[in-house]
């Protein structure tokens, strides 16, 4: 863990205090600066990015006639 000095960088106390316990300065800091959003630089342009696959809307298959064999008709014995 690396302590962030008080004076350089123009950081106020409220900015550097939480960083004392953060991983900033260690390898991997690109994604871990406590309380500070990832440094992605200045905005350049806006994009509209399509997803790889459009949501799959599959039409329902038409109902097929049942081809299941019907049970054989068995005469019911009627008592006299």
């Amino acid at each position, binding site marked *: *863990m690396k302590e962030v000095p008080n004076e350089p960088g123009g950081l106020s106390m409220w900015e550097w205090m939480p960083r004392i316990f953060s991983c900033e300065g260690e390898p991997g800091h*690109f994604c871990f600066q406590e309380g500070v959003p990832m440094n992605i630089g200045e905005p350049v342009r*806006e994009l*509209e*990015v*399509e997803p790889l696959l459009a949501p799959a809307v599959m039409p329902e298959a038409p109902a097929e006639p049942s081809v299941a064999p019907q049970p054989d008709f068995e005469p019911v014995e009627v008592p006299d």
Partner: protein
Amino acid sequence: MTSSLVVGPLQAFRCWRVEWQDGRPVLGSLFHTTVWPADGPLRAKCEQRPGSLALLFRRFFSRKVESHAAPAWGCECGIYAMSHLEDDEDLKMSPHICQRGPLDRVMRVAGVAQLWGRVVQHDRGYRAEYAQPLRLLTVPSLVRVRDTEGLLEAVARRYRIPLVTRAEDLSRAA
């Protein structure tokens, strides 16, 4: 501001918090309490957090709560990811256990996410509307604790994403 149409999702680097929550392995944001869903994409929303004293005062005295779709030009909202890394050394520390506070330790893992929807492109990265994890990097020499290995494998299974063991593979993938 006109937006350009890009076909297909972007791929970019980012890190996640990895932990067990209610018995389930989850990927979470490092800066927020957001948990990334395992069964679909994460959609960004602007939380309008008081990042500065001026914004705090403005919100306190304003009856109208400003809201907008995320990410918005001029705001800081959106799902963050890096388009490229200046130093691959960063990737060689994944997974990594960070001391986030005096009593708070958190494991983070680097990886690649795919981004789509409304995206604000920056010099070094993006702020996106939708994102989904794509790959995670676990350098074997850093996975010393058995629980750590189990947690990472469980996360990969739940999110149905592969674990790659070399930083080069992750870089090439992105």
